[in-house]
């Protein structure tokens, strides 16, 4: 492999738990290899140094304040390539649950008498503010997918985003369908790539990766009703992860 100047990369946290960045830091064996290929200049969760000179920006979290809107716009101006990391960044994630209420109510419920000091706007995925070049889905992202994406990015191959529903990953894992087990899930319309980890360990798919490109949401609404969910239950199932289902 010929020598080349390592591109500078930066990691940023917006409204999120920073769990996706932790998923990257957990790829411990691969980290030395990654650092041979990119120079990390900004990563709040992993280092003290800060620089605003970078080509690749990894952004975790949704945008939920005016300040964040300004900050994400600035990052876009500086970076050549922006990667949305995880459900909050790609779909808005769980943070969008608050969008069901007026913002004043949300502030009061969470912060009580200090509500007046809080500034907030409805949560949204970062691509509702800036252009995003690539999305790594999931809550949290999968380390395995990050490493595959990293190799593609540095080698100049087009990274591939899975565009098939979780049912595929479930069948690959040999799972019994959760509907057979008397539970409900949104796997049939949700983007896979997660190895159906939630179902494999006895839970259901909550839809953290958002919809596939062409989901048959009407069909799924009918299925959920046929298996006994009310219209309200159906809406709650389908809308848990974010208003925008990339």
């Amino acid at each position, binding site marked *: 492999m010929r020598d080349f100047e390592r591109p500078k990369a930066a990691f940023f946290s917006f409204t999120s738990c920073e769990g996706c960045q932790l998923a990257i830091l957990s790829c411990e064996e*691969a980290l030395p*290899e990654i650092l041979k290929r990119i120079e990390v200049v900004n990563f709040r969760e992993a280092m003290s140094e800060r620089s605003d000179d970078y080509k690749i920006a990894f952004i975790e979290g949704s945008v939920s304040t005016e300040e964040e809107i300004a900050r994400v716009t600035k990052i876009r101006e500086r970076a050549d390539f922006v990667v949305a990391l995880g459900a909050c960044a790609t779909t808005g994630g769980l943070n969008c649950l608050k969008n069901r209420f007026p913002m004043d109510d949300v502030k009061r419920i969470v912060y009580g008498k200090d509500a007046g000091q809080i500034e907030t706007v409805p949560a949204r995925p970062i691509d509702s503010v800036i252009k995003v070049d690539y999305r790594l889905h999931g809550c949290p992202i999968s380390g395995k997918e990050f490493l595959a994406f990293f190799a593609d990015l540095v080698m100049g191959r087009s990274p591939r985003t899975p*565009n098939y529903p979780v049912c595929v990953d479930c069948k690959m894992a040999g799972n019994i369908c959760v509907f057979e087990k008397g539970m409900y899930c949104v796997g049939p319309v949700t983007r896979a790539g997660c190895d159906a980890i939630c179902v494999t360990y006895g839970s259901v798919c909550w839809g953290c990766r958002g919809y596939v490109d062409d989901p048959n949401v009407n069909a799924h609404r009918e299925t959920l009703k046929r298996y006994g969910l009310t219209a309200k239950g159906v809406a709650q199932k389908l809308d848990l992860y974010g208003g925008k289902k990339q």
Partner: protein
Amino acid sequence: MEENAQYLYITDRGFKALVKGLLKERRVYGTVRKDGFPAFKEISGAEEIELVQTPTHLSAKEFLFPQREVLLKFDIKDNTHEAVVEAGDQAIIGLHPCDIRAIGLMDRVFSCGAQDVNYLARRGRTILIGSDCMPDRYCFCKSLGDTDVDSGFDIFLHRLKTGFIARTGTEVGADLIRKFAGPRMPSPRELTELEGLRTRREGSFTATLEAPPEALPGIYAMSDESPVWERIGSICYGCGSCNNVCPTCYCFDVRDEVRANLNDGERVRTWDGCTLDDFARVSGGHDFRKTRAARLKHRFNRKFRYLSGRFDSLFCVGCGRCSRACLVRINIAEVTNELIRESYKK
């Protein structure tokens, strides 16, 4: 019953000894209940096996054609590569007649033209042991010809109230029975019990096709413009479950995966499915089967028409797994019957 000589009786203890004998020399997969539903699983003791009579939700194809397998390992810096064939001695216990017929079709697919060494190496080291079934409301193998198999297995077991009638299909199977299971000739009473079981099974099918199997390729050939495709396409998810549970769907994708050191990598084969959105998308973004209706039509035709020309056989074995797995209740027998009825009107 002229073929009495092929039939042997083994006790329950003989069956356990057979499984134990197999476990000493190979991996053994058997039918169990998983979350209460029939499934194949690797077992480590004979007591784990339950010879379930209704079909497993997933077929046994994964043991011959895994969901994911490495075909090649490569090293970019050294510019070297090495072909990989992952195959070991194994046995599958509890295959129903439809499963055995499906494996026979897969054998033909993977040995047609360029031999698929990965599949064939694995298949050559696999012992197939069949067992009796009872149809559920999705099974329709009876409408496709035989409900039983005479070959394609090493051993076939018919469960009696006590013990089994064992049929052997290969020398390997006959040797295993002799070596481990302590067989004897069945008594007339045991053979009568077997006949009773077969009669009961024959009479238990509820799903049936309304045309004989040899008419189906022609009926499908007339159905390209049928409104059925749009109707089922509108409710289909494109989730690929029908492909993945099908014992004869063999499509796959091959990708090169490079590790983070950007040097070592593997060429990996994974299952693919023709009902998935990206299946027919090619370079430049062109997609020659854009709609779910078009993709479903393709899958049904693969089972009843397209492959029958090449292999002189239908590629549906009537196991009903796709209907059973479909959350929007697209039922392969019902769809086929609709097309049959439409063809009568033409």
